């Protein structure tokens, strides 16, 4: 019996497809998420909107919070480590979390290097703004990709930009003559083997979720129609006026993303969505998506 293989790491992400992964900060939140039909939860000390407000250095959550959430639900539990902070990742792996998010939402621990994720048996998900960034993370061992979007804003515009960038770059590779692929790999800073793989398959070799700014059922369905395999919702649920209703509605919107009548039905009477932030109003040094490379 072989554990920690690339197939089982990527495989768990395949089982999460068509689902919603929700940020939770307490065991009670985790149970609300599970009850609403979340396919996994992200255990955190603070949701991104609060991290943004608090400022300062955002680190891995207190392991006792992560543990309490792992004990509270039967669905998979993810947790975040800082970009490049391989010891936070070692701690989370030792605790037995099901997935680690090497996340730009936390303050990076290394300005140049991401974690060498191939050395771990726990799978990693990483954010990306474009195809080159996604393939760099996969070459380091990421078993799942998500758009970075702009976390904690309730504004889906950056997630849309990143998802469209990835899909249009993939289309470009698929239509490119073979002899132009090495130059394309060089230009996007990605390993040629992975560029060839994408050019052949027309898709990433790992599951690709949307994240960073999803706040409503329509936002979630928008990302699915743009080609996401599933959706992370960070602050969008527990910063809304009615978390159980939002959670359930977004789960149903991801399943029925192509059925506008059902989307209309599930969007009715949810109350106020989380307050949104205009991206242009955020000082440049407080943008999270530009963390990492």
């Amino acid at each position, binding site marked *: 019996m072989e554990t920690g293989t690339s197939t089982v790491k990527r*495989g768990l992400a*395949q089982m999460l*497809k*068509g689902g919603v992964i929700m940020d939770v900060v307490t065991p009670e939140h985790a149970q609300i998420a599970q009850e609403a*039909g979340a396919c996994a939860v992200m255990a955190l000390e603070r949701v991104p909107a609060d991290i943004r407000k608090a400022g300062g250095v955002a680190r891995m959550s207190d392991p006792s919070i992560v543990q309490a959430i792992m004990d509270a639900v039967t669905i998979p539990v993810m947790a975040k480590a800082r970009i490049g902070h391989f010891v936070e990742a070692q701690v989370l792996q030792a605790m037995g979390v099901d997935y680690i998010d090497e996340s730009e939402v936390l303050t990076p621990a290394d300005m140049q290097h991401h974690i060498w994720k191939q050395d771990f048996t726990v799978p990693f998900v990483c954010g990306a703004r474009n195809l080159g960034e996604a393939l760099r993370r996969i070459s380091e061992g990421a078993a799942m990709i998500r758009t970075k979007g702009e976390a904690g804003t309730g504004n889906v515009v950056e997630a849309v930009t990143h998802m469209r960038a990835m899909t249009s770059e993939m289309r470009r590779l698929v239509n490119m003559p073979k002899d132009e692929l090495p130059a394309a790999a060089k230009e996007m800073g990605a390993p040629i083997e992975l560029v060839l793989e994408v050019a052949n398959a027309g898709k990433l070799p790992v599951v690709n979720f949307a994240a960073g700014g999803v706040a409503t059922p329509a936002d979630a369905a928008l990302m699915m129609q743009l080609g996401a395999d599933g959706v992370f919702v960070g602050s969008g649920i527990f910063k809304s006026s009615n978390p159980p209703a939002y959670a359930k509605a977004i789960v149903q919107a991801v399943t029925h993303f192509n059925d506008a009548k059902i989307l209309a039905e599930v969007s009715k009477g949810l109350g106020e969505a989380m307050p949104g932030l205009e991206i242009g109003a955020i000082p440049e040094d407080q943008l999270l998506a530009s963390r990492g490379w």
Partner: protein
Amino acid sequence: MKIGVLAVQGAFAEHASILRSLGLEVVEVRLPSDLAGLDGLIIPGGESTTIGKLMDAYGLYAPVKDLAARGKPVWGTCAGMIMLAKDIEGSDQPRLGLMDIGVNRNAFGRQADSFEVDLAVPALGTSAFHAVFIRAPLLTSVGPGVEVLARLPDGRMVAAEQANLLATAFHPELTADVRFHDHFVELARKRVS
């Protein structure tokens, strides 16, 4: 022949792609109306609590039970096997409960305990089947009409068949070996002819 893949959540696209490669017409099933005219249904891996809630929210339990009662084959992989089981250890989560089997959810532990292993599956021939187990369940009991198709090297049960119902704790949709899919399609073909 037309095979449905329950597509409310999970690895439905992988099953659909294998079925298409075998020349079958595939329907993604999200609503009861998608079940019309199907010759069989696959319930994929995913999160069984999520799948159970979404099946309930859109009224899929009764029509899927009806499909099985009409003798159409239904195959559950991993979460799908949990949905098929009559008995789920320590859980009252919603289920189809079609198959006379008991299961233990996440029997091996968390993701760190997910694994790959070669299994002997006599029903599929002499060569081993490479099986991928992800936060997988185990079969803990089987009723008298249930045939066990595969066991782990230590003897624990991981695949079973009961008339038109098939259950695997692992994910044949994640590997290139299509023998389980062939086997399922054969079950469907027998019912059609």
